């Protein structure tokens, strides 16, 4: 194995945000009160900006190396060392993690800056930034960890920050409940993740190479071929476990239910954590372990199916939602589904490409919606918006660009990355025309619900009440500037990964040392072009439908919502009642078990314990009775009869000399008679 280059500054990419978090977490409250919010902002934003600069340095450092030697490591210290388990606290940057740290610190940095404006009024400003920094730290740890266990720290760490920020306004239990839900659902995923780690470690250990470090797993992965546990291939089971972890963090079926509720958090949090970075961790993890997933065709099939199913399910829900952020939340779930679809057909590069472009346009959409909500005084219901393009021009234009991107309009970033995924779904050895067709259907719905949102919010007449309308205002520069940068990215980020028929795919080349060369497509350039035209056509149809219904008002939405007696509409609007079903089965079920446990403790175990104590007490009581009435009874009886005898004999002592003499005389006579009769 080649010797990696020790690069000491990598640790600071990760640790700087932690320092920011520690500083604001411990001193922020005082600083904010005594000095002002600007100092809190400074200590929060500066570390992320410096991390970004260091990430750029790492990126250029990699670029200077030959492609096959592109990785830097920074081993800090030995963390755990027991038996054959050796885990270091060590960071590494290779082309894949370089993309991730640039996204996390770059987009993360923009969202930090945006938050200065968005959170300005909040009393707990310092707490917000402490957690935002802590999140950045955990996310960077997740993507730069050189082993699975260290990655798991970041994995749960981002979950903690997500929990804390969803429930940021903790005085309202709607928010805290959403936070709890996010954390607990993610724990179900984490359960799978950790079991996957165990299985990989011990299976490799059986071959004499127990390890959790990525590079070593990659080296020895082939040893796992043919090993079985519980009748299933070890690689298949391990990757399925890991994928369960991914469905938690990346909100896929069956664990996606927490993400829509996570919108209770401040909007920049939704942009950073619940759209651009954290939720993509599952995709990153699969790409990181692509060599394992590629060894498990069954798992890949599951990943692709779950991905495409989630993409469709979430898209159908997004069609009818009325909350501006909920639409975006379901759209995020849907787009993540596309990334898993790509990963499931072993097109990991396409998944990461979409991850990156999605980070731009979805962050732009969320921040744009934040700007709208800010202007509307907290209103999130799209039915009360409309015509905002006039009062929020910057927000409107950037939002429009992002909508064009997510809808897959040609030449935007979303077009290139989504097209790549659809093409791979069709042409990869693991792909099929079904996957492609379902993906295209989802893309059509995406175009529909995104333009629906655009028209409802920014076009037509404003439906807000008078008071809100008077206060409509464009957001300050600190908020619009990040929007502009992200909007530019929503276009430009796609051009580094052009489809084969347009030119060289720089992005795929960059990732090649990690993810391997892209599959030989079994179709021609002509086929790719035809499919592309078709999917653009479907998206255009989605746009046109939204245009007719929500812009021209030529078609009434009721026309569609009353289909099949309104059943379809109600299913979609109520999210297929999945939350209610989960609540009934899992929450109620667990609480029932809990009550059974307590019942066993109270009525069985303590019944026996108290019962044996009572039995002992009863026995000693009986014993006492026996003592009192039998043993003491006999003793007392003896005493009593002695007394009684004494009493009786006392009567003999009358004090009358005559009677004494008679008695003595009688006794003597008896004695004489006896003597004469028997002893003679």
């Amino acid at each position, binding site marked *: 194995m080649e010797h990696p280059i020790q690069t000491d500054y990598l640790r600071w990419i990760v640790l700087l945000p932690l320092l920011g978090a520690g500083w604001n977490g411990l001193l922020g*409250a005082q600083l904010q009160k005594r000095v002002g919010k600007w100092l809190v902002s400074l200590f929060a934003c500066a570390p992320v900006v410096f991390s970004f600069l260091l990430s750029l340095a790492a990126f250029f450092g990699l670029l200077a190396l030959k492609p096959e030697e592109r990785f830097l490591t920074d081993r800090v*210290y*030995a*963390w*755990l*060392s*027991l*038996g054959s*388990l050796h885990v270091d606290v060590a960071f590494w940057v290779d082309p894949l993690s370089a993309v991730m740290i640039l996204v996390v610190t770059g987009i993360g940095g923009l969202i930090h800056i945006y938050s200065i404006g968005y959170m300005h009024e909040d009393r707990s400003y310092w707490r917000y930034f402490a957690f935002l920094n802590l999140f950045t730290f955990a996310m960077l740890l997740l993507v730069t960890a050189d082993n699975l*266990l260290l990655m*798991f*720290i970041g*994995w*749960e*760490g981002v979950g*903690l920050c997500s*929990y804390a920020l969803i*429930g940021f306004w*903790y*005085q*309202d*239990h709607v928010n*805290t*409940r959403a*936070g*709890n839900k996010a*954390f*607990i659902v993610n*724990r*179900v995923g*984490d*359960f799978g993740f*950790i*079991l996957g*780690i*165990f*299985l990989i*470690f*011990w299976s490799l*250990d059986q071959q004499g190479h127990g390890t959790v470090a990525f590079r070593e797993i990659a080296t020895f992965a082939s040893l796992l071929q043919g090993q079985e*546990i*519980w009748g299933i291939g070890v690689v298949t089971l391990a990757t399925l476990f890991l994928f369960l972890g991914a469905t938690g963090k990346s909100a896929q079926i069956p664990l996606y239910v927490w993400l829509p509720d996570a919108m209770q958090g401040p909007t920049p949090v939704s942009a950073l954590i619940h759209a651009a970075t954290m939720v993509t961790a599952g995709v990153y993890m699969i790409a990181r372990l692509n060599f394992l997933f590629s060894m498990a065709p069954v798992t890949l099939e599951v990943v692709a199916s779950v991905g495409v199913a989630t993409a469709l399910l979430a898209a159908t829900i997004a069609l009818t939602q009325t909350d501006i952020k909920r639409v975006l939340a379901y759209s995020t779930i849907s787009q993540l589904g596309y990334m898993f679809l790509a990963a499931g057909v072993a097109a990991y590069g396409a998944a990461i490409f979409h991850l990156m472009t999605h980070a731009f346009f979805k962050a732009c959409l969320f921040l744009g919606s934040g700007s709208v909500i800010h202007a509307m005084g907290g209103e999130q219901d799209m039915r009360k918006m409309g015509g905002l393009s006039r009062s929020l021009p910057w927000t409107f234009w950037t939002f429009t660009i992002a909508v064009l991107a997510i809808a897959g309009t040609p030449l935007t970033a979303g077009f290139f990355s989504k097209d790549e995924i659809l093409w791979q779904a069709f042409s990869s050895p693991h792909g099929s025309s079904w996957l492609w067709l379902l993906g295209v259907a989802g893309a059509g719905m995406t175009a529909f619900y995104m333009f629906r949102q655009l028209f409802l919010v920014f076009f037509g007449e404003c439906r807000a009440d008078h008071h809100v309308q008077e206060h409509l205002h464009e957001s300050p520069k600190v908020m619009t500037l990040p929007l502009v940068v992200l909007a530019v990215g929503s276009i430009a980020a796609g051009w580094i990964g052009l489809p084969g028929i347009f030119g060289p795919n720089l992005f795929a080349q960059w990732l090649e040392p990690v993810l391997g060369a892209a599959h030989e497509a079994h179709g021609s350039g002509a086929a790719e072009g035809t499919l592309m035209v078709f999917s653009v056509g479907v998206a255009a149809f989605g746009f046109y439908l939204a245009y007719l219904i929500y812009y021209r008002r030529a078609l009434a939405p009721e026309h569609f919502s009353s289909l099949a007696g309104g059943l379809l509409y109600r299913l979609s609007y109520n999210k297929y009642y999945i939350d209610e079903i989960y609540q009934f089965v899992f929450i109620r079920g*667990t*609480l029932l*078990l*809990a*009550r*059974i*446990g*307590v019942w066993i*403790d109270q009525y069985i*175990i*303590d019944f026996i*314990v108290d019962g044996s*104590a009572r039995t002992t007490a009863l026995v000693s009581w009986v014993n006492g009775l026996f003592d009192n009435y039998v043993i003491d009874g006999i003793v007392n009886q003896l005493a009593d009869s002695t007394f009684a005898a004494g009493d009786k004999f006392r009567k003999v002592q009358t004090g009358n000399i005559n009677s004494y003499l008679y008695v003595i005389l009688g006794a003597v006579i008896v004695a004489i008679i006896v003597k004469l009769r028997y002893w003679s």
Partner: protein
Amino acid sequence: MTDHVLTYMTFFPLAGMVVVLLLPRERHDLVRWASALFTLPPLLLAVWLYRNFDPVNPGLQFVEKAAWIPAYNINYFVAVDGISISMVLLTALLTFLCIFASWGIDKGVKGYFALFLLLDTGMMGVFVALDFFLFYIFWEVMLLPMYFLIGIWGGPRREYAAIKFFLYTLFGSVLMLLAILALYFSSEPHTFDMTQLIAQSSRYGTTPLHFWPFDHLRWGFQHVVWMALFIGFAIKIPAFPFHTWLPDAHVEAPTAISVILAGILLKMGAYGILRINYPMLPEATADLAYYFLGALGTWNIIYGALCAMAQKDFKKLVAYSSVSHMGYVMLGMASFTPQGISGAVLQMFNHGTITGMLFLLVGVIYDRAHHRDIDGFGGLAAVMPVYTGVSVLAFFASMGLPGLSGFISEVLVLLGAWQKYPLLSALGASGVILTAGYLLWTIQRVYLGATNEKYKAMPEINGRELFTLVPLGIIVIILGVYPNALLDLLRASLDQLNQLVIPHLS
């Protein structure tokens, strides 16, 4: 000085008790400070011990041995090794902090602190004694003050709780005494010296006994002794179904006593199994602990978590969380892997610090609100931000959040257990979901939400209370980031211990 370090650590508190008894009854502060003064030297010595302990040496260190009752071959024999070092450190730390957590006791102050110091000697003695007779004496010495501390200074149902605790533990002690005598009379020459008893472990027969029910179970003498000891220790852990004394004792005991109970007393059960069952009866351990102990541990994890979820009393919830967390100790011990067994001992330490924090935290609001009803609070975060911050740290440590100490020990236990029993390990890992469930739900009900009108003016946590919590919090973070700080001390001895049993695993 250094030759007698363990003796000093053990008997300083006893000297303190004598001094406290001589102090005037009404000088409460004097009694308190004197108690603090006499628990400080053991803590300082513990730091010294930590720095001078040789992590490479798997054997006994700081050995002290003197003839005591030669007629029966009974010695005063104390020492530490990797099995006990962490417990000695934990005992010294928690007893010192608990003196300060007892500051609020204002009834029978002198008696309380005298008994507390006696308890301290008993506990420290249990962990350092290597003569079985001495071990038993300390074991019983510890029992009595505990009974009175719960029974006199406890809550409304203190008498029920104290008697329940006493009877449960006494039941265990009797079995242990019988086992000790059985081992004594099987050894040749008769001895109570644990190292001798371990060296003679092959003398304790394993051929099945010829009477019911042991012939059915194929149990030999060794198995019967193992089980007698095990039940004695299982009561302390507490393992299902011997756990029901714990919630009652915890709920009724004053705060500091709850901390001691969870932090130290529970560890004695697991410690006893590792110190006595494993090395002295390795074949029975291989037969009986394999699977059975792991399954029992897994059951504890899940059952304790479920029971915790149903609690309305804050302290009872923490008590049941102890039942759950001690399950990891059993599962780890039963794995016979370096990761599992080290994880188990680390979990014993971590549970001491984390649950110690949780009980102290419950005590803080109990002292202010005089109730422990989880639903009776709400929104404390707005009123007591510092207190809430510390609480959240402890809660997440208890949840096994990576980066904090609880994670390291739990993941080591589950990782180690996976090699032998993947199914149990998976079930145990699912307990982590339940733990997150009941702890987050508690955080939500107590700290979050709209502030309860009644507690709008609740005073923030004070300096003394912070003083008891912060050291534990720092340890929780350090051991999460750099677990080798403690694991290094344990590793050698525990690996050696493992090697005694592994050859007998079929």
